[in-house]
């Protein structure tokens, strides 16, 4: 039934060890320097199954396959495919396996990508499953940090919705492989899940909770900001009060280390003042652009 012997999937950052991550990031850097074969995946087809909205992840995967000479076919919503007629994801995956050489999937249910890997005959890459995993985002986050500094032993602050934010979960797990000290700053009720915090601590990671970004801004090397979603709050006033207290501004950054970088998986709402965009700390648009070489390296890993 499942993908067969030797089929490689990328489902969770937890499936990688440190060596594999470093190897993939090294390959992405080579690609970034235009050292790659533009025909490497010529004749290959990537199925892009997005059952949730996306701009960056979807387009960067499509860009990645195109730059490697392949093409993509896609489904852009549950409403637009047979799942709307009651078909199971398992059946959809079995069918699509016959049309493509690899599948990229985003789905609202946690574990959907792992299910897809069970039923697919081709490699599956998880592009985000519910509040679960988002390994390609984590790899490009790590890549962006590594462009500025070695990851080992740095101080990283995660700011925002750390409970539901899958990018924060995946990144925290990966950073635990690099001896990073983790600082968390989140609204009440949106803290890092206790089970994840425990697992990270057991993995030797030091995690320090803070009430206010100003407590930690002088200390950290990376500020990773995530979106606080309006729907997590009972009304717009309480949302506004909370989100404004987690806002990154030039004034806040004036006391930061000179080499501090600000990352955000995007899209941002009010978490980062647009005035920050012009500061050398701002790396979120570069981070977004890095999605292409990192995803090219991922496609080459599973499709070549």
């Amino acid at each position: 039934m499942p993908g067969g012997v030797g089929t490689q999937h990328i489902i969770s950052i937890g499936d990688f060890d440190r060596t594999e991550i470093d190897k993939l990031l090294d390959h992405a850097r080579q690609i970034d320097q235009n050292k790659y074969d533009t025909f490497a995946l010529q004749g290959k087809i990537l199925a892009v199954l997005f059952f949730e909205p996306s701009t960056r992840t979807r387009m960067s995967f499509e860009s990645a396959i195109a730059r490697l000479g392949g093409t993509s076919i896609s489904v852009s919503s549950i409403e637009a495919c047979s799942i709307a007629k009651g078909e199971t994801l398992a059946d959809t995956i079995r069918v699509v396996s016959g049309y493509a050489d690899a599948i990229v999937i985003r789905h609202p249910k946690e574990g959907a990508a792992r299910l897809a890997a069970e039923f697919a005959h081709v490699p599956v890459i998880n592009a985000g499953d519910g509040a679960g995993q988002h390994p390609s985002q984590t790899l490009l986050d790590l890549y962006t940090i590594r462009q500025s500094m070695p990851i080992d032993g740095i101080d990283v602050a995660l700011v925002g919705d750390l409970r539901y934010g899958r990018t924060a979960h995946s990144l925290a797990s990966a950073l635990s492989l690099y001896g990073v000290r983790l600082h968390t700053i989140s609204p009440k009720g949106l803290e890092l899940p206790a089970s994840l915090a425990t697992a990270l601590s057991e993995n030797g990671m030091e995690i320090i909770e803070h009430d206010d970004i100003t407590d930690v801004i002088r200390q950290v090397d990376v500020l990773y900001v995530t979106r606080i979603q309006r729907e997590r709050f009972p009304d717009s006033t309480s949302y506004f009060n909370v989100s404004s207290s987690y806002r990154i501004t030039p004034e806040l950054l004036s006391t930061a280390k000179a080499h501090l970088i600000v990352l955000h998986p995007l899209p941002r709402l009010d978490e980062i003042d647009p005035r920050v965009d012009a500061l050398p700390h701002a790396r979120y648009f570069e981070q977004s652009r890095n999605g292409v070489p990192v995803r090219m390296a991922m496609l080459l890993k599973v499709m070549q």
Partner: protein
Amino acid sequence: MKNAQKTGEAEHEDLLVRRIMNGTVIDHIDAGEALNVVKILGIAGTTTEALSIATNVMSGQMGKKDIVKLSNRELSKDEVNRIALISPRATINIIRNFKVYQKKGVEIPTLIEGSVRCPNPGCISNTNEPIKSKFAVLPNGLRCLYCDSVITKDLTSHII
């Protein structure tokens, strides 16, 4: 190994539950867990064979214990090992012609499939997909192999 089914501490239980001719006797179940054992084996509502349950039976070793006897069915290794999750001291006696044909303890399995429900409502295993739930057995609980949710307490409430 062929021993008489009736041994030492079983005398009292004999008054409660008759010996069986063929089948499986699950002995030394932690007191109060017999119904959960039946539930985790998935035989509660489906078996057509005689099923006998004794709870809070006096036991020399355990103080009190539960016993489950299932006629005309020999449980497989995978089935009995699920019991280890809720009653690791349980012993399994395969009975043939009123005699203990085989006696063994339970071993904690590495994977539990289809008998525990993931507590995460957003998990794909809680949908109509044609899959069984799958959990890795950890030293302190179970981890869903689909969504990574961890169950560390009150396992029996998650048994399907």
